[in-house]
């Protein structure tokens, strides 16, 4: 029996064998409860902190609110973490990095969009350099609206995520939050980047660039969002080129 890596049910071939052993199913239930308890109460957070919401996120990790009380600690590297909290505006220059950091996180992983910039781009959404919502780049599980959300709302968001994980482990599947409705908050005359009836001032190249960022990936909600395309290649070449620059004596 092959391991289905796409499955979200945490099944393992060993379970199949163990279930046939007498008395083990009771032990399995107990073990599963322990696993669930440990999974929901040790959500290590990778802060993808770019702007204003980062300050409020630090406040939530500081003395008054203290997300440590539900076992969430902040780690600065994606390889240790379960939850990525995107706090702040994501620009077109930063989005490939966010995508790369998201891919470095081990499964199972979850993403929280904190603040209206991460949710929809807020009033920067019509600006040429801003990604209109982080869910166009990586799949988002929990949305915490606000500009910025208060520190205790971050705690509430993490508790919502815990409830989702419990539901998922119980076999109910991962209930995802819908993106908050923001269409009514903006001027309808301002077309958002990637909109089919797009802003006529955008060139084709700019429009394609926003497409390549995965605008619309939110609808199918796949775990693996689309490849970023040319931008990621350019950035990778940039990093590789830094050593080449050195050899040229730059």
């Amino acid at each position, binding site marked *: 029996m092959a391991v289905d890596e796409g499955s979200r049910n945490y099944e393992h071939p060993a379970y199949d064998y163990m279930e046939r052993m007498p008395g083990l199913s009771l032990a399995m239930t107990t073990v599963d409860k322990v696993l669930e308890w440990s999974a929901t109460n040790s959500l290590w957070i990778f802060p993808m902190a770019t702007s204003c919401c980062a300050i409020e996120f630090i406040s939530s990790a500081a003395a008054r609110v203290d997300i440590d009380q539900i076992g969430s600690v902040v780690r600065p590297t994606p390889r240790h973490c379960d939850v990525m909290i995107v706090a702040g505006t994501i620009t077109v220059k930063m989005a490939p*990095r966010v995508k790369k950091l998201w891919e470095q996180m081990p499964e199972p992983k979850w993403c929280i969009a904190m603040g209206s910039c991460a949710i929809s781009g807020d009033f920067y959404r019509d600006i040429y*350099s801003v990604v209109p919502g982080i869910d166009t780049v990586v799949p988002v599980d929990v949305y915490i609206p606000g500009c910025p959300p208060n520190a205790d709302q971050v705690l509430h968001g993490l508790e919502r995520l815990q409830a989702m994980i419990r539901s998922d482990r119980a076999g109910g599947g991962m209930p995802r939050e819908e993106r908050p409705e923001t269409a009514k908050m903006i001027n309808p005359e301002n077309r958002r980047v990637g909109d089919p009836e797009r802003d006529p001032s955008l060139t084709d190249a700019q429009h394609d660039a926003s497409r390549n960022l995965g605008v619309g990936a939110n609808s199918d909600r796949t775990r693996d969002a689309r490849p970023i395309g040319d931008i990621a290649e350019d950035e990778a070449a940039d990093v590789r080129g830094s050593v080449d620059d050195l050899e040229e004596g730059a």
Partner: protein
Amino acid sequence: MDIEDYDPDADLMALNMGPQHPSTHGVFRIKLILDGERIVKAVPYPGYLHRGVEKLCEKLTYVQITPIFDKHDYVAPMTNEQAINMAFEKLLGLEVPQRAKVLRTILAELQRIASHLLWLGTFTLDIGGTIGGGASLMMYTFRERELILDLFEALTGCRFHYNTHCPGGNRHDVPEGWETVVRHVMDTIEPRIDEYEAICDSEIFLMRTEGVGLISPDLALETGQSGPVLRASGIDHDLRRDAPYHAYDQVQVRVHVETAGDCLARYKVRVAEMRESIRLVRELLGLLEPGPIVGSKPIKSLVQFKASGGQVYVGIETPRGELGTYLVGGGDQRGAAPYRCKIRPPSLHAMSVLPYVLPGHQVSDVVTILGSLDPIMGEVDR
């Protein structure tokens, strides 16, 4: 030793620091060329938080721009609002009543304390790290910062991004009993700053900061430094005293100057500024007399207020230095929107010193120097 002196076969290494790094205060990337552990060359790459704010300002009316200015320097939004609103007032020729002037000064000084508290916490976090004990002081400074944010929340309803200023005055008058709470908070914070000073007894802290990141007075002037970075290099310059705005001409601002120019001097300047701000807040509370909080023109009439041409520059002293706002009025064609809005952020100039200061230091000094400059990337990239 300069990079040109190395032969091409030398064993140099390029190290990219950032844009995702816990000590870069946001998203900042710097490329370091290393000879072993020693930095030979440093090339900063800003722009990971470029939000096109100056372009956005050209689409909006004067009153709509205020909340956007909150988000530049998100550690000190109060002073940013004041900068843009003072520019509007100068452009539109509006008078600010005395009570609003004093209230703005109080808010600016409270914001300075909150901003420096946040800086102190994150600076020790940069130096010590979570496990090295840096997180202890961060927890303490955030405890005090929350007290000041509570004051702002009582006044405006927001923890930050207040939008409490408008052209010609303030939107929110102080609630009843606010002054008493402010005095109480100042009494609470003042002895605790003495407690923070115990960090100077730590030999490790002194070794990490003393003599590190020297900025000479010439270099500081050449790169356009302002605020605590300039004053730590021995240049006595403070816009609050030298070009008074708000109610700063009614109080005496004592400017603290250090001559060493290293990270420890910048620490000392900021801690002294916190004490000075507490003194100023107490003094200014006595000047807060009853009266109108907005000017003669009601706010609603300002929404569509059209400025004729003309250009203004207003510079104020934010916690990070001189924040300049250059504004060109829209005239008849642009309606209620400005023609051009240019921001002179103090953090950008503070960051521009890095390529000159970093060579010769160890890799671990990068976070110390970067932290002591107190840059906010929202301001740098705009």
